[in-house]
């Protein structure tokens, strides 16, 4: 496996740093039609420090990074590197100044080899005979950069053969080979396994020690405390607060992010759970899950927890029947005792919210009402000729829009015009219209800002109180602990433990998901 040379400097030590560039963003403002995305944002980032950048969706983080990356030009303000004003008007110009934007979406070319992927932005440097490139020179250069990261990735492997963590390493190597001195990480851990995350953090620490300026955008506040030295909170395009990470508590940060006191998740207690509605026995899929056994009661919220790759989504998909099931039975009944059901029975009766709403959650070019009614279309079709009663559709859609509080001008707005949180609420409304007794949600608040997150959690509690059962997968420890009545922990596709509310502890959940032994929080 990969062996990263560990840096001996502990996390937030200000001594003995290599001198690096000094980046200044001064009074950056940017206006898009209808919205002021950035408002006189000033951030000074010296080399050798990791600057965390947090804020709700729409706060301006991405816009700021796009400004630095040359994708967007600011209306006002200036950028200085080492005291010199610089103009960044294109990605190439950004690269020229040593800025490397490591975006959330994979930027690896699947049909190019690893060494080509690393060097693809500057191939002209390896021309030997006329336009011909020297493979040998390219390979040794690429190997150099990978070695710096302590990565043992096969140089000749094609991009498509790499796993996510390796692709990220290649992207970082690419940034370094282009002379990157200022690295921008945008939500780098969302698709990584725990081990890959640790690896990444070690690499970041090494890069920090060599004096680079590092920006780190994340939704996971725990990571800010783990890897960042300083933090800047953006809110509504302005800097709400910035300073050393140690000077803020998490609640503090959240408060600055949303600008108001957050209410704790209420509604968790005091719900009466009914009889068992779902019984899963020995559920085994092709690879995951392996011999899953659990039950679910009416009105209960079951959390599914595990690291990435532990088979959470696969469990859901096997349950619903999208993935093939090798062994096992599922017994389900809306009323009365659970009866064994065939594969895909649940698919037709429950609500299923997928993880990637951009890909398969919405019909972006269609108006809201068509999206919301899309799971129940047959109900709106006349018996003869199957004519759709559009008036009724729109009316019902309006009802459900109100129920989940989708903030839109009216039901004719296109799904593509909504913010992430409202899009997610639309998807929830769509499934609620089906009036299922069971809702299965895969990361229901992923990529959703804090305000909408709470509203969605409120909807879940409300529905649970009225008897709807939930199975929820979430990567956010706080969320899953506050939402669930019970949590099952997956590891390697197996359910390794089941915790009731009284047994919830972050420590226990983390340790169960990673290994059998308990670890101590740092």
């Amino acid at each position, binding site marked *: 496996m990969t062996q990263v040379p560990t840096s001996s400097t502990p996390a937030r030590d200000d001594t003995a740093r290599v001198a690096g560039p000094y980046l200044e963003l001064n009074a950056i403002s940017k206006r898009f039609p209808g919205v002021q995305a950035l408002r006189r944002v000033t951030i000074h980032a010296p080399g050798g420090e990791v600057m965390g950048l947090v804020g709700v969706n729409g706060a301006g983080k991405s816009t700021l990074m796009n400004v630095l990356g040359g994708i967007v030009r600011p209306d006002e303000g200036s950028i200085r590197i080492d005291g010199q004003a610089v103009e960044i008007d294109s990605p190439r110009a950004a690269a020229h100044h040593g800025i490397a934007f490591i975006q959330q979406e994979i930027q690896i070319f699947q049909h190019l080899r690893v060494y080509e992927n690393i060097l693809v932005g500057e191939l002209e440097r390896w021309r030997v005979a006329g336009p011909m490139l020297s493979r040998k020179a390219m390979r040794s250069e690429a190997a150099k950069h990978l070695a710096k990261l302590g990565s043992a990735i096969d140089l000749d*492997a094609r991009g498509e053969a790499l796993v996510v963590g390796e692709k990220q390493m290649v992207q970082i190597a690419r940034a370094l080979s282009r002379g990157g001195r200022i690295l921008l990480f945008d939500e780098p851990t969302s698709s990584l396994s725990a081990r890959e995350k640790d690896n990444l953090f070690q690499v970041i620490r090494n890069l920090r020690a060599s004096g680079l300026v590092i920006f780190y955008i994340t939704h996971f506040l725990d990571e800010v405390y783990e890897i960042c030295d300083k933090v800047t909170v953006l809110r509504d395009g302005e800097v709400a607060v910035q300073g050393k990470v140690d000077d803020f508590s998490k609640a503090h940060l959240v408060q600055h992010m949303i600008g108001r006191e957050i209410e704790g998740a209420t509604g968790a207690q005091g719900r009466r759970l009914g009889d068992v509605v779902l019984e899963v026995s020995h559920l085994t899929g092709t690879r995951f899950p392996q011999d899953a056994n659990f039950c679910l009661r009416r009105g209960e919220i079951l959390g599914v927890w595990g690291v990435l790759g532990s088979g959470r989504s696969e469990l859901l998909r096997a349950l619903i029947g999208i993935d093939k099931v090798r062994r096992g039975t599922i017994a389900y009944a809306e009323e009365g005792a659970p009866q064994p059901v065939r594969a895909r029975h649940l698919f037709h009766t429950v609500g299923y919210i997928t993880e990637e709403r951009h890909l398969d959650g919405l019909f972006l070019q269609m108006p809201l009402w068509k999206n919301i009614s899309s799971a129940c279309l047959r109900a709106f079709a006349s018996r003869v000729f199957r004519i759709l009663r559009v008036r009724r559709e729109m009316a019902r859609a309006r009802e459900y829009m109100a129920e989940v509080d989708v903030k839109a001008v009216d039901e004719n707005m296109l799904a593509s015009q909504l913010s992430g949180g409202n899009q997610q609420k639309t998807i929830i409304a769509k499934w609620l219209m089906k009036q299922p007794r069971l809702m299965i949600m895969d990361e229901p608040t992923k990529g959703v800002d804090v305000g909408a997150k709470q509203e969605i959690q409120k909807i879940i509690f409300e529905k649970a109180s009225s008897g709807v059962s939930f199975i929820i997968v979430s990567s956010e420890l706080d969320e899953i602990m506050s939402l669930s009545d019970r949590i099952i922990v997956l590891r390697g596709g197996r359910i390794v433990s089941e915790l009731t509310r009284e047994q919830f502890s972050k420590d226990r959940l983390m340790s169960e998901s990673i290994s059998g032994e308990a670890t101590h929080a740092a």
Partner: protein
Amino acid sequence: MPPSAMTPRMAPKSTGSVFSLSLYMFFALMVVVFSSMSRTFLTFSNIYGTILNGAPLVLITCAINFALLAGTLDLSVAAVGYASGCVCGIMLRNLQSPLWMAICAGLGVATVVGLINSLLIVKLKMNAFLTTLGMMLAIRGVGKIVTQDRTILMGKVLADIRHMKIGSLGGFPVLLFVVAAVVLVSQLVLSFTRFGRHVVAVGCDERAARNLGIDVPRVRTLALVTTSFICGIGGVVWVITLGSVITRGLNGYEFLAIAAAVLGGTSLFGGRGAFFPGALIGALILLFIADGLTIVGVSPYTMPFVRGAILFAAMYVDSLRVRFT
């Protein structure tokens, strides 16, 4: 779905090589079957003749391969070849131009079309499929106008040229070397030049390429112009080999070329594919199947069936491969 949870590491590499392996095996199988069914299949004159007659197809396949690799599509390839051939033929016969001038004119026409295609598809961002379909119609129309919809026999003029061509370079016509050169040079460009690597990058992921500072419009434009240029070569070769310009020249070759490219492993989505062996083998398979069937005595009416069936099969295999990656 987080890829790390889903993608087993070995899978993509092995499906790729399995596919290429089955391609070679199919080719070998075909050769074995046909040669066992007929004495004349594996003879020098048959192979030679097939390849010579199939030169235009090989070239047009290489041409469309460039477009496909870059992530776009050019259905006007055969029409461009036809038009180039027309122009070349007319200049030779009616205008009594010297050979080099006629060839340049043909190539020039092809390049111009390539530039027009790039303008429409890259600059104006129009849908490649429909646009090149329209261009195909338009160009064939121009070809018809220029030849006044009649066959032009090159007759004596061409006999001289052919005579000059055949017998040079050790008994093999220069044309074969031209074809080989195009295939090899294309492969070298693809694998060993910045342009080639950029084409693959753009075909894989246009947005990522742009973010890295790759000039995507320029790469695409160059790819499309190269496509048309190679078609021009194909058209000129066709006219010289055939000895006349027939009105329905190279009809349907664009679809054959797509079939050949896909057979050879090129993905319709861009980024994946090769010229040598890939596209070359694909074209050879199609050519030798047609040849073999004719030799064996199968009715020519079955040709479209077989072609359609092979195309279908190749597509199916391709879709399987995409699904498992």
